């Protein structure tokens, strides 16, 4: 079980993580490690985490998602969690985890739009500074 790793795919300046299995705690911690390493190595600007296949999210996984987002932000990468199931959303709210500071989107496409939009914003900001 310890060998299970979640693949991290690169999509241009962004990273895509699609969680297709029921994550145990170790896998989640491993993902957190891997992801922060890959963000630094590839200089990624955004991370999409697709959890549409997850039926169950416990408080630990919920917290890990929050930590991943916070870590990525420090490494200058936006995190968008996409495709959360209604039942999972209700569970997280009932657990008191509303993942403040994590951006969310209905599906990968919308998530990508959010990342692109914020990317555009930050580049125009830089241009403005130059001018």
């Amino acid at each position, binding site marked *: 079980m310890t060998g299970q790793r979640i693949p991290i795919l690169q999509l241009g300046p962004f990273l895509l993580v699609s969680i297709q299995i029921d994550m145990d705690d170790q896998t989640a911690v491993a993902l957190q490690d891997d992801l922060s390493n890959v963000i630094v190595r590839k200089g990624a600007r955004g991370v999409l985490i697709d959890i549409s296949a997850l039926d169950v999210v416990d408080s630990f996984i919920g917290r890990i998602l929050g930590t991943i987002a916070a870590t990525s932000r420090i490494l200058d990468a936006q995190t968008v969690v996409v495709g959360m199931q*209604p039942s*999972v*959303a*209700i569970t997280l709210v009932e657990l008191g985890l*509303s993942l403040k500071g994590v951006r969310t*989107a*209905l599906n990968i496409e919308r998530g990508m739009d959010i990342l692109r939009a914020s990317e555009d914003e930050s580049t125009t900001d830089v241009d403005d500074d130059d001018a």
Partner: protein
Amino acid sequence: MQNDAGKLLPEIVRSDETGLLTEWLKLQGASGVSRGTSEEDVREKSRDFLRGFAEAVQHGNLTDIDAPEWESVRQVLTDVSKSGARNGLTPAQTATFVFSLKQPLFTRITSKSNDVETLASELWTVSKLIDQLGLHTTELYQKGREEVINRQQRDILELSTPVVKLWDGIVALPLIGALDSERTQVVMETLLEQIVANGASIAIIDITGVPTVDTLVAQHLLKAVAAARLMGAECIISGVRPQIAQTMVHLGVELHEVLTKATIADAFAVALKRTNRKVVVTDRAAEAQRA
């Protein structure tokens, strides 16, 4: 003794079915069982019941009405109690349907038995049997009422949580009535499901129809908003009436980080803006206004 008891009943029912029916119907009329149902209906039900009753007693089983030979009798009783429950008859009225059969049976048994001992045992058997049937009817009546209540409760829950699509990617949830935990759960589930189904990025929760907003209701609302946000949809709360806004401030209820609007129209305007759309006045409308 057991075999002797209940010997008269099958005979009476077989030989004088019509007489029994007439007398029974008269008693039912007097006690008001037939109120709310047509006389023919009652007559038909009573006839069916007596026929099934006659058949069942021929089998000699006068103690256990759960036995298969009582099936047709139970069927009639089910019909009677269900329709009674639906038509608003009281349990007593419904049970009288069966209990009013006692008198005609008793008079016939009394006239046919020769000695006191037989009479007593016969009456005891019949009385026990009718009581069982009566209890069965009451139980069924209760079940019928419960079904009605359950259905109404379900209807209310479903009626009160319609999620309507206002535009591509914009859904609205007009809330009507008090919000308790159970309803919030249903509201939340429907809202989230509809967000997925419509691919909505904005959900407007309209609370015009919510009579009071206290801390608990606010908490429920915030839960729904948080859950929708986790799915990637933004929520706008609209329809906050002036009094409710004041009450909320007095109670210290804060809907932080949630956009609130006075009317659903304002909320819709914001939603359109967020989805990069706008409503324009067409030339023709402008002309009409000028004219």
